[in-house]
């Protein structure tokens, strides 16, 4: 297995999931992920692959590199294979779609740094990597995450409660 395939196989699923959660659009997430891998392939040496990939992906989101990423289609086949292998066909019931909408709204209530820290942590990045990507002190990541988790849960709960009240 080449370095390219190994990198792709190892990180593509988590990176796309992170980006999908971050962006709320799988196509966009796929494009940004592919652009991230294209850039990774141009690098001679990457010390921490995971940290590097997520940092670049985060920056690409920030830079809104979607248009440029659209032209980077040469990894599309690998992406499709990876998606077929790791992502089940979604069973989007109405209830789950509503949950997803509530979750999206709850996530959007978080501050940008809190949101990124939470999404990165959910993808398994450790505090050091998160601190590096966000440019914060390692010691502050725990506090950031505790705040983000609390606000996410509270906001989600509020969304659900409001929806239930509307239905009632």
């Amino acid at each position, binding site marked *: 297995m080449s370095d390219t395939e190994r990198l792709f196989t190892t990180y593509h699923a988590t990176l796309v999931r992170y980006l999908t959660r971050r962006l*709320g659009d799988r196509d966009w997430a796929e494009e940004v992920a592919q652009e991230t891998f294209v850039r990774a392939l141009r690098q001679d040496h990457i010390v921490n692959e995971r940290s590097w990939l997520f940092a670049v992906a985060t920056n690409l989101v*920030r830079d809104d590199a979607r248009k440029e990423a659209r032209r980077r289609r040469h990894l599309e086949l690998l992406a499709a294979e990876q998606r077929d292998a790791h992502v089940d066909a979604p*069973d989007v019931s109405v209830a789950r779609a509503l949950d*997803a909408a509530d979750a999206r709204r709850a*996530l959007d209530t978080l501050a940008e740094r809190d949101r990124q820290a939470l999404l990165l942590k959910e993808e398994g990045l450790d505090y050091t990597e998160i601190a590096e990507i966000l440019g914060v002190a390692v010691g502050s*990541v725990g506090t950031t995450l*505790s705040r*983000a988790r*609390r606000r*996410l849960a509270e906001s989600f709960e509020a969304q659900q409660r409001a929806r239930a009240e509307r239905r009632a």
Partner: protein
Amino acid sequence: MTQPDEGLIHAWLDGELPPDEAARVEQLVANDAAWAAAAAEARGLIAASARILSALDEVPAQVIPDRPSVAAAQPRRLPWWTRAAAAVIVVAGGSVLVLQRSEAPSLPAPQVADTARTPSASSPVPAEAKQEATTPSTPVVSPSSRARTATADAASSEKSQPTPAPAVAPPPAGAPATVAPSAVAPSAVAEKLAAPIAQATVPTAAPVREAVPMMRTTGGAPAPRAELANTPAQPLALRDQEARRAKAASDVSVMGGVVAAPVMPACFVVRDAATPAGDSVVMHQVRLTGDTVFLASREAEPAVTAWVLRGAGPRPGLRSPMIAIIATPTSCPKP
């Protein structure tokens, strides 16, 4: 008994604490009811947030119209000459230029901008400064305000002086601005020196682009030639990122500096000291206003424009992040 530290508890539950610290937290959670409650709550929050976030995974493509707000795009990395926060333009005019200078005793002595303010030059000019720069009657109460008042006075006198005839036709309407009075750094000297030039060179419809402490030669008091030669030239054009973003539509860059060149030839090879001559950009003179020579690139896309001031020539004393620019007169390429 200490208050539970939520961040510490989350770090502990995430397995991010060193062993000794983890043991300490574990001990607290085991022996302290408040810490135990906080840990239980943290466990619940961790599980809940994971569950909530997993709901986001079932997002079909292209069905969510609203995209989360993302931070504004970072400014693009631009060519070296546009990355220059300030530039000193040196013209290898040689003896011809010296000769021309000696034959032009009326050439005003250069005045030096306060280059120490370069890092702050990108910051907006205080409203007060802008106000004073356009209000000559402002009472003089301090050296800085005196300088600003002098700026306004100089601007007034500059307006009343006849402007030297341009060597070539002025740029078309909408041509990129070089400097604007309101964008000049709040250095007293810089303001004093820059405002008249700005007023003389900025098209009225052009947007404010640059914060530019710079050297001014027009209208300055004549100086002995030896003094002129020893004047540390620090003409600067500072790229202001806000202005850069604002001008994204035109994507025109501006730099500035001093050139001890005569009006002719009307083209210059422009490069920095670290750039091979082969990578230079030929810029042609599009306008001459007083001692300000306006250049526009013939080769670069998008077009790069520059303004230069004829003045003192090469000088040391560059400060980061300035880049020394060498502008050498050359024959104009055929269109």
